[in-house]
């Protein structure tokens, strides 16, 4: 965290000295720069809200897709497999466009950019979450199921109290990865007009015409956001591990 700010400050100071840069556009000590920074940062809440909603949904859907994939029933396994293969074959950007422009033609309902974005991101990510959950659940030894069944637990309680808590500890780093990925992919929703970080930067570039500084600022915004998420995931990992010590 602290390192990130030092890096950012360093970059500003170093590059600001050479004549090619125009950091004034995002210099918060001048009134116009301050307004620009505020404008850029106003996308932050949408980026966060969009990613957080999408990831929450995709984790739940991913689990619901993974479970039948582990069943002894062939039909269920096939259905789960098909979902994963189909959904993860579609590029996210294509999915965003398809959901926003294409889907309303089928359903007859127009959806807002936010929910279109959430839907596309969550759908796309759920296939990956399903694979992560499947691997995590499969990594739990058979003896754990047998012990749970032997004390008369049913399937649901076995998953809920015995298997998933252990699986989730193991897949936490992979889920952390997906959260980071999702934060970055949320930038694609800018193409349908979602007012998130990337969209704001694009709009500012059009009026200020300082793409180098503005996009660098955008890069740093994502960097900081993602460093915070990484730290959070690591904290969670540590906390869950000490549980077992």
């Amino acid at each position: 965290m602290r390192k990130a700010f030092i890096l950012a400050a360093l970059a500003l100071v170093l590059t600001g000295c050479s004549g090619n840069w125009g950091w004034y556009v995002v210099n918060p000590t001048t009134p116009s720069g301050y307004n620009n920074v505020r404008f850029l940062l106003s996308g932050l809440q949408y980026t966060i809200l969009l990613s957080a909603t999408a990831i929450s949904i995709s984790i739940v859907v991913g689990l619901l897709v993974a479970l039948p994939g582990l069943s002894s029933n062939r039909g269920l396994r096939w259905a789960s497999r098909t979902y994963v293969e189909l959904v993860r074959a579609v590029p996210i950007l294509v999915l965003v466009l398809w959901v926003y422009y294409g889907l309303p033609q089928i359903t007859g309902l127009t959806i807002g950019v936010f929910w279109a974005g959430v839907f596309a991101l969550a759908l796309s990510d759920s296939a990956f979450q399903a694979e992560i959950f499947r691997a995590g659940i499969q990594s739990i030894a058979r003896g754990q199921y047998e012990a749970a069944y032997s004390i008369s637990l049913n399937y649901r309680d076995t998953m809920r109290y015995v298997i998933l808590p252990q699986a989730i500890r193991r897949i936490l780093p992979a889920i952390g990865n997906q959260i980071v990925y999702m934060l970055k992919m949320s930038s694609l929703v800018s193409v349908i007009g979602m007012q998130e970080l990337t969209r704001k930067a694009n709009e500012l570039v059009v009026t200020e015409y300082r793409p180098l500084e503005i996009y660098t600022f955008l890069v740093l915004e994502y960097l900081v956001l993602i460093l915070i998420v990484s730290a959070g995931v690591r904290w969670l990992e540590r906390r869950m591990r000490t549980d077992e010590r």
Partner: protein
Amino acid sequence: MRIEAAVRDDEPIILFDNVFKSFGDFQVLKGISLSIAAGERVVICGPSGSGKSTLIRCINGLESYDAGHIRVAGLALGTDDASRRAVRGKAGMVFQQFNLFPHLTVLENLMLGPMRARGMNRAAAEEIARRYLDRVRIPEQADKYPRQLSGGQQQRVAIARSLCMEPGIMLFDEPTSALDPEMINEVLEVMAELAGTGMTMLCVTHEMGFARRVADRIMFMDHGEIVETAPPERFFSAPESQRCRDFLQKILNH
């Protein structure tokens, strides 16, 4: 009017009638018939791969069977979840590898069954958990995690976890095989004590000292069949079959 599971006094608590089981082409159980009375303590032994684990795992439905009939505690054990769960409530199982839940404390390991399968509230479950932790003589380990315990202590926790379901039958599948020699006795001690309480016990083990001391009967299995069944004295002094004699010679002479 109350409807109870029909257990007549003379009905065996475990009954196998001509049970067959294969893994693919490989026949593991070849027409097993056996009958165990309530309160009986039976030790099963035999060479590796003879089907001992498969047999004992059939009793609480961890393994399905292909043909024949199994009755446990007056209940017909089918391949449906309902009958399996019903039987599992009456027959506890202790595994070679302990299979404790590593993410739960000892106390939570013990409370899970009573709370989730027996519908007890937290206080009642904790009371019963502490009672059986006392019984296996490690009450002071209640708040530790399994990995903080020695193998012998872990296995005793596993025994206590099964006892918390208050089953009438306890099944043991080589409970001391994964233990360092110096920890074997503390586990056998707990099991012998349990045997003194009238619990029906079925134990796969090669601890012949334990078998001699505790068992009412010893069953010898080979190639998916029960070759011989006898009380310990006769089993050790006058085994009838050649296969059994060979086996005894191998394990007693090393």
